[in-house]
Structures are given as C-alpha cells and as structure tokens.
C-alpha cells in the first residue's frame, strides 16, 4: 500500500469516527426539535422511520399546549434569575479566588489550592444530604437563595481562573503597579479585560451546570413560585396524559437559552479552555 493510499484510508477512518461521534451527539437534539413539531401521536410511532427526521406534517401546537399546561414564563423567570445570580456572583468570587491563588503571596496558599482540587472530585450528590439538613436548619428552604448561594463558589471555575491567571504575563501586573495602580485597580483595569476567554468559558460552564440542576431544587423547594425549569419538565411525566410532543416542545424551549449563550460565547470559550491548560 502506497503512502498516499494509506493517508486516504486514515482520513476516511478519521472522518467515519468523527461522523459517528457527531451523530451520537446531535441526533437526540434533532429528534427533540423535529418531534416537538409533530402531532403527539406520531412522535413515538415514527421514531424508527425516516419520518423521525423528515416529518409529514409540522405545527407549533405542542408549544402552545406545553405553555398552557405549566406556567413556562414563571419557570423561565426562576431559572434565569437563579442562573444569572450564580453566573454573575460566581464570576466575581471565583475570579478573585483564582487570582489570589495564582498571584498573591498568601500563607497556606498551597493547602487552599489542594482543597479546591479535592472538592473538584467530590460529586455534589455526596454532599447534598448534609447540605440539605444544614440549610433547612437555618430556614432557607423554598427560596431563591438556597438555589444560589451554595453554587456561587465553584472549584472548577476557580481552577479555570487559577490556570489562566498563572499563564498571564506577570509583567503586565508589575507594569501596572509601577504605573501607580494598586492591587484592586490592577485586577479590574488590567487583568479582567485580558481574561475575557476564561470569563466566557466559566460563564458557559457554570450556566450549563446550573441550568440543568434538578436534584438540589427538588430537595429544597416545594413551591412552583421558586422552582426552575428542570422541575417543570418533570411535572409532564406526572401530569396525565403523558404527551411526548409537549415534553419535547418544552425541552426545546428549555434548551434554547443555553444554545444562545453557547453561540454568543463560543469563540472565547474554546480559547479560554485551551488557555486554562484543559485542552479539549
């Protein structure tokens, strides 16, 4: 086999593997979007046929039905408020923590960093029950606060910021100090504007995690007034009749803000993750 032929085979195998992976990732999303536009009865019956991708008839009926059955606007507001608070406060807190760990000369810095890394590998489910008892004891159940505060400080976000700041040229800060800026001014005017990629990456990552949060709101809330979207979608399974078209339509409405966020920040996200030493 010649070198050219071998390269062609390699290229073909690479394309095949990439194609299969892409299909596996995109297929559920495509199925959800197309299914949401089909009559409810056709969603499952046509699942294994070509009509699953190329429907015979499309309508927005499922969307109006879904919005009628649960107060979508209220749940969207709750989710948006909770996520906005987690992302905005998280950016401030985690960026400062990452900067302090990367740059400031603090006693016990190495231990603090080791703790952050250790927390990174503990699954949330492992601490959910003790956290439930603690926060219930101080009367925070059924509130926005209980869905926001525990998720502001995030070890993954701290680590992403830490890695990025570690690689930022130290001379930038030193030049700013000599130019007359103190630590805060240097952070706000020099560091933050040059850390857009990592801010974008952390925004997307924390938005992804918190937008889909299910277990914690389920444990801590009982009132629809404070519950987020993932709990609303769950109610479709418990409210008869089970309408798959409605569920898929609600799923699309729930995922749409995530897609918008990702598309807006995607350019910086890739740079941010790469610069944070977590390539891929």
């Amino acid at each position: 086999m010649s070198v050219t032929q071998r390269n062609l085979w390699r290229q073909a195998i690479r394309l095949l593997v990439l194609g299969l992976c892409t299909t596996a990732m995109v297929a559920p999303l495509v199925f959800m979007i197309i299914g949401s536009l089909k009559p409810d009865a056709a969603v499952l019956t046509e699942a294994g046929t070509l009509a699953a991708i190329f429907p015979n008839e499309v309508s927005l009926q499922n969307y109006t039905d879904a919005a009628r059955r649960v107060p979508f606007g209220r749940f969207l507001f709750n989710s948006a408020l909770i996520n906005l608070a987690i992302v905005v406060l998280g950016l401030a807190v985690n960026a400062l923590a990452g900067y302090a760990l990367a740059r400031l000369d603090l006693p016990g810095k190495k231990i603090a960093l080791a703790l952050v890394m250790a927390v990174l590998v503990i699954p949330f489910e492992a601490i959910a029950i003790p956290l439930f008892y603690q926060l219930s004891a101080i009367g925070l159940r059924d509130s926005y606060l209980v869905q926001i505060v525990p998720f502001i400080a995030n070890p993954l976000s701290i680590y992403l910021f830490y890695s990025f700041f570690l690689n930022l040229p130290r001379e930038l800060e030193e030049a700013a100090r000599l130019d007359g800026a103190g630590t805060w001014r240097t952070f706000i005017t020099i560091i933050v504007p040059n850390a857009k990629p990592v801010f974008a990456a952390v925004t997307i990552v924390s938005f992804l995690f918190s937008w889909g949060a299910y277990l914690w709101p389920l444990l801590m809330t009982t009132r629809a007034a404070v519950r987020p979207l993932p709990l609303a979608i769950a109610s479709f399974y418990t409210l008869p009749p089970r309408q798959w078209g409605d569920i898929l339509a609600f799923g699309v409405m729930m995922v749409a803000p995530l897609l918008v966020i990702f598309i807006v920040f995607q350019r910086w996200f890739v740079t941010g993750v790469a610069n944070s030493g977590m390539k891929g």
Partner: protein
Amino acid sequence: MAAIRFDQVSKLYPGPVRAVDGVSIDIRDGEFLVLVGPSGCGKSTLIRMLAGLESVSAGVISIDDRSVNDLPPEQRNTAMVFQNYALYPHMTVRGNLAFPLKMRKTPPAEARAKIDEVAELLELSPILDRKPAQLSGGQRQRVAMGRAIVRDPAVFLMDEPLSNLDAKLRTQIRADIASLQHRLGTTTIYVTHDQVEAMTLGHRICVMKQGAVQQIGPPGEVYERPANAFVAGFLGNPGMNLIPAGAVSAAPDRLELDLAGQSLAFESSAIPSGDRIGSNCLLGVRPEALTPVKPNSQEPQLRCTIEAVELIGHEQLAHLSLASSEMPSTPLAGSYTDKIIARIPSTVRLERGSAMWFGLSPDAIYIFENDGEKRSIDHRATESPPVES
C-alpha cells in the same frame, strides 16, 4: 531625577539562594548606569528590588537619601521598560501612554498635552490609535519607552529592553536610548547581558557575577583595567584570552612565564614580585592584541596552531591552540582553556592547521593571580619601558 544608593543590599530566596549578595553602589543624579553580567548574576533582581517588585532581604536602598525598602512600587516614582515590553494588550497606544497619568489623576488636558509631546518625541503620533498587537517590535519598544517617560519618573529602569529586537533595530534603538537619556537627564539603570550595549550606553558599567559586584567604572576603564579574570573575560567580543601559565621566575622588573612549554619573558617596571603571583597564574591578552609576527627569538612570542578561521567582514577571528597540549595545572584550569582567539585583518592569509607566531607586548598583557580573582599587573598605571631582548 534622583540619586540612588544600594547599601549592602542582599536578596535571598528559599533554598537558600543568594541572588544578590551585599551589593553597594552609589548612582549619581542623572547618571546612566549599566548593570551587566551573565544570566542569573542578580542584575535584574537588583533593579526589581529598587522598583519594589521584590522585597529586600538585607541592606538599604535609598532614592535621594530616603530609604524606599518599605515603600510599595507605586510610591517609588520609578518607571520600568520590561524585556517583553508589558504593554497593555487591550489598550491602544494612547491608552497605554495615558494609563500612568490617569493613575496619578493628571488633569485630562494636561495628560493629552503630555501624551502628544511624548508621541512626537518618540515618533508615535501616527500609531496612537493602534493596539500593541498591530505594532512591530520596534514600535512596541518605543511605546514601552513612552509609557515610562510620560510621567517624568525619578528613575528609569530598563530590563534588557532590546533583547527581543533584531540586530539592526537593536543598534538603532540603542542609539535612540542613549540620546533620549542624554536629553532627559533622568537617572537610568539599564540591565543587559550584552557587553556591546554595556560598553556603548552607560556613563559607568557595573559588572556582576553570582550576585556580587565585580567592578564598577567608566566603560573604557573597566575594559582597559579589568579588576579580575571574570571581568576581563566577560567584556569584549570575543572576550580576553585567559591562558593558564606557570611563573618560572618573577622579579620586580622581570617575569618569565611557561605556557605549555613555551617560555615567555617580559620586562617591565609594572611586573609584580614572584610572591604575589605564585607559581601559577593566568596570562590575559585581548584578541586584538595578538599580532601575527615573523619568528624571532628576540621578543616574547607565542607559537600557535590555527584551528579554525571565521571571516567577519573586514576582520577574521583565528581560533588558535598552543603548539603543545601540556598546560600547567591551576585551580582555574577547568574554567579557562588553551584555546586562544586572535582578531586579525582579513587581508592576512590564514591557513587552517598551519603554525603561526604572535607577538606579545608587555603593554598588552594582563597577569591574573592563580585564583583569577585579582589582577596582579597594572601596566596601564605605569608607563612601560620598551621591550628589551
């Protein structure tokens, strides 16, 4: 402008590593001092301590007789040009120049006038609205200089500011820096490992090695009268040849050396007595002081073999070895070598592998003591008599 004093200043890092070791230097108001030395000799650490970017482990650093040891960087009124320029990437050139003025709450009209003045001085006016990524290396360097001078600091600190530029640009900007410093008259400390920059820029140069000052003085003086073998070998391109030699006899007016079996006799009133030299020493001779001669037993000559020849335009560098490979044993035998370099006009025909004789005038030689640390012969201090056979 300001006078600066380093008084027994040391810097220790955990390890412990002594990066700077009891350095004392007085820098006059308006002086241009060049700190020169090999990588890791502590020169950058010294100016970083002056800027307040590193703490001082021991000693006192004063600016205008006021200790600045405990002052934060922003209160020392020093400006630094970094090796990688450290321009703020998200700001335009104008933004970079304006930043130090903004930090000092300079009124906007005054700041604008100052920026325009500096931009004109450094020919930055056409690029004021560009960002650093859109600038060439030379332009970035000029912006870094502009940011340093825009707020009239008491001291300029320059940490190898030309090392990222190509050779042609380096020569041009080197001249610009010298003329700018002359015009502004601001006290300047310039760090480099490039001895050409050191020789051409400073009023005085300070040669450092392993955290300690080896010699301070005007460039010509340090070049002509190196305090020790390190300074002699470091300054000059190529540096001074340092050849381990055995002192056969040393009287006040006569020195006889054995270089790998070749006997060389020098007669001069500046020759130190034998007990100062010891039985072994280092013979120093600049590459340009080795002049090809015809064999003649009447005057001190070195017989060498040409190992390689490098043509560098109007001159050529001849890499030589002593005819015999036997070298006397000295504690510095590992540090120095019998390889000798001679700078010879390119009109002289050199043939690789052939033997050649080089004349050595007592005026052109340096004798360093066995440990290489002290210069034993000071022929520049006295007028040497003509060589007698």
